[in-house]
């Protein structure tokens, strides 16, 4: 008969209402705990961590609880000579954290705190001949980086500084037979990469190139009986895919193809009633990343 389809079971006593205040408290306290090993380990993505935390707080109308001045100073000290921005002080610059930094400063309406021209130069310098973008000087190519590049430049109003046509060409070369996108041409379709590519095509005004019905179907197929969404066929559901898949569907205008009520129930079940925050799936440990995507 074949193996069981992968999914989780949402228990009847799982949380069923949104505990916004608990989540705000969780984020506000994050990083203030001593001996927090997990926090230490995530230093290499600190800039993104801050962005996720701030966005959650902003969504809940509690942004003022975070220290804007210190965060801004932190970002300034993370901008390197080449213009790129690192995840934390003493780390190397990277497109991922350059975007997060620009996103944070955009939240605060203060992009001029850093050298914008240099950022643009850095981003531009990472574009390859085939239109793709490397993440940093070491040359890893991934459609995530194409998204980071255009999102950064869009926020700064400088998209014209790169070769947009070539960048689009590369993204389209990553479109697969199922309408989805992977990280490089030929790579398996994956919801996270799809988010980056549809976001990219939206920002560059090329959404008409997406096979919206085909991709929309692939995306709504991510919904499992539990109501949760997975990232690709035959994988477990994860609350962050609520964001990647849902945002992609919204971008291509097919968001109503997901069963909202069932998804909502799944997401709420991922909350931790004691500590606040969201986990990737019911019963697991919470973290700011999943808290942001659950809240959204």
């Amino acid at each position: 008969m074949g193996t069981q389809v992968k999914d989780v079971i949402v228990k009847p006593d799982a949380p069923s209402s949104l505990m916004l205040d608990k989540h705000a408290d969780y984020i506000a306290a994050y990083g203030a705990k001593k001996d927090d090993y997990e926090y230490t380990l995530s230093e290499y993505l600190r800039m993104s961590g801050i962005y996720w935390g701030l966005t959650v707080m902003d969504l809940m109308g509690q942004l003022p609880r975070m220290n804007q001045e210190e965060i801004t100073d932190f970002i300034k000290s993370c901008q390197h000579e080449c213009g790129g921005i690192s995840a934390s002080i003493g780390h190397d610059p990277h497109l991922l954290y350059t975007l997060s930094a620009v996103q944070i400063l955009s939240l605060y309406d203060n992009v001029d705190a850093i050298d914008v021209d240099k950022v643009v130069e850095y981003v531009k310098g990472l574009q390859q001949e085939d239109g793709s973008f490397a993440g940093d000087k070491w040359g890893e190519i991934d459609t995530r980086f194409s998204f980071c590049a255009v999102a950064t430049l869009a926020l700064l109003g400088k998209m014209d500084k790169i070769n947009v046509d070539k960048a689009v060409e590369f993204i389209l070369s990553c479109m697969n037979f199922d309408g989805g996108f992977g990280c490089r041409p030929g790579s398996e379709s994956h919801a996270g990469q799809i988010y980056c590519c549809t976001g990219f095509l939206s920002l560059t005004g090329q959404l008409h190139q997406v096979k919206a019905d085909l991709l929309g179907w692939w995306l709504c197929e991510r919904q499992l009986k539990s109501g949760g969404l997975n990232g690709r066929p035959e994988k477990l559901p994860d609350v962050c895919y609520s964001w990647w898949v849902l945002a992609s569907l919204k971008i291509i205008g097919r968001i109503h193809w997901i069963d909202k009520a069932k998804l909502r129930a799944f997401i709420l079940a991922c909350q931790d009633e004691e500590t606040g925050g969201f986990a990737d799936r019911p019963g697991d440990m919470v973290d700011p990343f999943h808290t942001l995507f659950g809240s959204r």
Partner: protein
Amino acid sequence: MSGVEESSHESVEVKENNAFDDDVEDQLGDDYAVDPTRYIFYRDRKEWADLEPVPQDDGPNPVVKIAYSDKFSDVYDYFRALLKNDERSERAFALTAEAIELNAANYTVWHYRRVLLQALSKDLEDEMRYITAIIDEQPKNYQVWHHRRMVVEWLKDPSEELEFIADILSQDAKNYHAWQHRQWVIQEYKLWDNELEFVETLLEEDVRNNSAWNQRHFVISQTTGFSDPTIVEREIKYCLKQIRKAPHNESAWNYLKGMLQDRGLSSQPGLLERVLELKDTHCSPYLLAFLFDCYEDVLESSNQKENVEEEEREGTLRKALEICKLLAQEKDTIRKEYWHFLGSSLKSKYGSSDSSEESTADNSEPSVPASVQQETS
């Protein structure tokens, strides 16, 4: 619940117990011991006394100073010191291994290690053994795979790659990083020959492995292509065979559709009949969806033909709409909005103005592009 956290796509697996393999231990020198009670902090090692450790600068509140584990701060204080001085030495190289052991997702450490590999002209074969061990422990990490790729490129030697990746995939057959690396190696060094066979082995083990199906498409499209009818027939046979084994298999159906959709699903002689045969014994929402797509394609191509009976066309439309209804109401209710949408669009495109089918739910999402609602001819 474990104390281990997963953030973004990168799984940071932390081991409190030290489990080095011999090569790594050799690199660290004799005074390093696996037994934590004999561990000597860098700050207490005479041969490191010349360096001023650089404590972590944590930036803003509430990102405040934290009491890291002692060993972690010790290693990273000295890592930062080395970085600050841009020291290119054996001891620096050895320390990167320690830093990686504590946090393999730290991309700055990997950068530095690569700089040192080149500056010190380190033996890259040794490095291959090292990265093999690390990936084996932490296979879901971008940095380790990228590092391996760099070493393979420097060595210009992919000879170990296919076997290594196969080994990693035997632990997790869907590891996204492993598959990317595999695709890169195969394309770069033209190692296509046995890949289809490899894919088939994996699909024998788990016919629902979407990564393997993707790889199948990758191999064929980059080698023989899909234009040869013999190849297409072979692939159809293969898909249907797998579907018989496990009918509820999204990947197999996606593959079948993906392969045929450009030339039109109904263009393949006999396919519709074969799928209808399966419907009784091996039905699934995917089979029904595929049938729908076939009927839609029939309608599309009959639009272009002159001599298709109106009755025939209506028959096909009716069958297609029945499928939508079946899926929306019974077989795949979670996606009823999608099935309603498909039914409506098909009806407006191919239905006659005096048709009396029951109305299906309207698409009320304002952002659906107008182009999907076709005018009736």
